């Protein structure tokens, strides 16, 4: 039998790297646009034109742990918006709905919130009037609508008002962030009319969302967390003086909590409300720090501490590309070692391909 190699792991081609970079950028973009989508819809629901600004007393949470009356299992919708003391919206984000199966699952998920939810910011924690919303990217909006119609035809129903709202940046000289209702309706007639035509979020609100929100309840792609840490958090852990001497190698001893607290303060939650999830989660941060250990950008210390190496530059001038390159090099190195070990023992390695997972090196 001839040995077959699906691909040569030692061929560190530009193509493999470019593909990895493209894939990771796509994942990060998907994640960030989902983050932006939930916050944008919340702002849209709470916005008043006169006087211009968010509605006084309105609140929202991304996500929020709620109990269901008569059901022991709690739910955690991606977004809960209390527009008024007697009206709220519960929303689920599904940026991509790739097929009918995914559409059906999205409907089932939203159906879980079609109940008397407990956990609102009211005296009795209940809400008399609730809308259900499925948030999706405009490219998936038609599939979402088809899925809902099929789901309803199959005998299912929503007891509460339900709507599909798509989000997107418009493509033109001005890139507006637009939310549009493409199925159903929300109960607030003013908000619904705006959504019906496509509600454009004010630019300064879009800027705030992008500046202040980098995470939501779903685990981010590993490289996204690594980029956020190495762009906005770790560099500022070092004093400005440390950057003066180009030849000096600087390390900074930090606890995971110190890094996590800064992330929460700048881009996530730091709320004492027990219904709000920790965003970002601790394990996401340690995963990224462990990845830095694998890249020799950090060392693991006892007691949940790490020594972080100050990066002075990134080759290829782009951190996504930089980390992809390091990861591929690491997995190619493992593959090369595996091949070399196999050769030494006289065995062939069959059908081997470079590891594509984002798991950190040991």
């Amino acid at each position, binding site marked *: 039998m001839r040995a077959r190699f699906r691909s040569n792991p030692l061929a560190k081609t530009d193509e493999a790297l470019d593909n990895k970079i493209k894939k990771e950028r796509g994942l990060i973009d998907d994640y960030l646009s989902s983050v932006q989508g939930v916050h944008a819809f919340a702002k849209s629901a709470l916005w008043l034109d006169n006087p211009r600004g968010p509605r006084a007393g309105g609140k929202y949470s991304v996500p929020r742990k709620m109990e269901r009356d008569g059901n022991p299992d709690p739910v955690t919708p991606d977004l809960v918006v209390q527009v008024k003391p007697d009206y709220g919206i519960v929303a689920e984000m599904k940026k991509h709905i790739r097929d009918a199966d995914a559409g059906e699952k999205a409907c089932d998920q939203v159906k879980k919130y079609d109940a008397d939810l407990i956990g609102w910011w009211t005296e009795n924690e209940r809400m008399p009037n609730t809308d259900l919303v499925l948030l999706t990217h405009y490219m998936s909006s038609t599939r979402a609508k088809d899925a809902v119609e099929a789901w309803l035809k199959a005998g299912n129903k929503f007891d509460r008002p339900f709507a599909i709202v798509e989000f997107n940046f418009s493509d033109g000289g001005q890139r507006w962030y637009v939310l549009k209702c493409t199925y159903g309706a929300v109960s607030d007639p003013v908000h619904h009319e705006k959504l019906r035509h496509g509600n454009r979020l004010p630019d300064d609100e*879009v800027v705030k969302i992008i*500046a202040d929100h980098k995470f939501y309840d779903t685990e981010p792609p590993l490289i996204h967390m690594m980029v956020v840490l*190495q*762009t906005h958090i770790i560099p500022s852990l070092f004093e400005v003086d440390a950057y003066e001497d180009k030849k000096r190698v600087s390390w900074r001893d930090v606890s995971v909590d110190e890094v996590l607290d*800064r992330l929460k303060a700048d881009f996530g939650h730091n709320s004492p409300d027990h219904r709000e999830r920790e965003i970002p989660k601790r394990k996401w941060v340690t995963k990224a720090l462990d990845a830095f250990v694998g890249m020799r950008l950090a060392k693991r210390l006892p007691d949940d501490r790490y020594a972080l190496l100050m990066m002075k530059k990134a080759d290829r001038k782009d951190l996504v590309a*930089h980390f992809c390159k390091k990861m591929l090099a690491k997995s190619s190195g493992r593959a090369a070692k595996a091949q070399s070990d196999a050769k030494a023992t006289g065995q062939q390695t069959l059908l081997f391909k470079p590891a594509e997972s984002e798991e950190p090196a040991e």
Partner: protein
Amino acid sequence: MPPKQREIAEAAMYAQPPTYSELPNLLQGVLTFVAHRVSVQFVVSEEPLTKTLRGTKSDRIKLDTRSSGETSITGTISARLPGNRGRISGRFVAVQHPKHSLVWLVATHESTEFVKRGLDEVLDLARPRALFPVLSTGAIETLLEKFEKHSDVTDLRVKQVGVRTMLSSKGSGRSIETGRRWTNLSLKEAFQAIREEDQWATDLTIQYTAGGMWTSSLKISRRARITLRKNLSNSVPGLFDHMASVVQKRFALLNGRDRQASVLNEARPFQIQFGRSVLSTPAEVGRLRDVLHEIPNVSCTVLHGNPYFHAAVVDYTDGSSYEILALDAEYLTVLPQRRSTVLALQRLCESVFARFHEGEIQEQPAG
């Protein structure tokens, strides 16, 4: 020039740190007896230069200073030239502006090479760093318009203009073209020509009659440097004051925008307004991306390219970070993050203005 008068003029300028009000007369003395020109560089320093310059250390540069209180300093610099060309030496004075206290006027009559290899490097060694402001074409125009309105100034003509413009040529490795023209235009005509040809100014040299009697000349560069020749008009102190005001306002616009500066941990975004469509095509956005990648010592991670542009930038000069957003073809939004120093933000603005397109820094408007 009689040696004695030359010595007197030099001693008057450099022996003792002068006051701000003494500076114009001392500059005139140097122009009359010592040299054909003097340059006055405006810099911003968050700590007094009298303190920060004393602490400078370098293998290449020897610096001796003498200061008078906290508001003025005089010094001698000896700098080793690259390429084994020996050393260059010279003197300077630095005086704090009395009203705009972050602004310092650093004056010398020495050669361009001394200014570049000695003085500018010493200022760069100061900690915290002295910032070299960058003026827009509009700012230069306003400064010169105010200068022209002074009663002491007549017959003002623009004699030389340095410009930059976008280069649109397939196959060209460069995106910016520089040019210089020798001319004889009124101020209004000169700036109109710059605008009509979609250029931006790097420097302007003007000639004028001072006091109705003598011809004088000066050059303003976008690096906030004024080079004076011949006879100083009474309007020059006013020009210094206006320049100091512009420079301090520019610093204030970029200062304190990061999260660290805010009690509520909020960053304050700002806009770079271009006043025309410069980001409407993928090619133009690609050029912006390339310009950001070319900023030395910076990593620029593109998070989204089309239809809107979003990038995250780390400046390894001091660990600053910020994000760039292009939501509109006519402006960029800059989102400072946890640490975004004035130095880092200025490096960004300078790179964008020099290699992409000139713009104006403005507050992020509501709505």
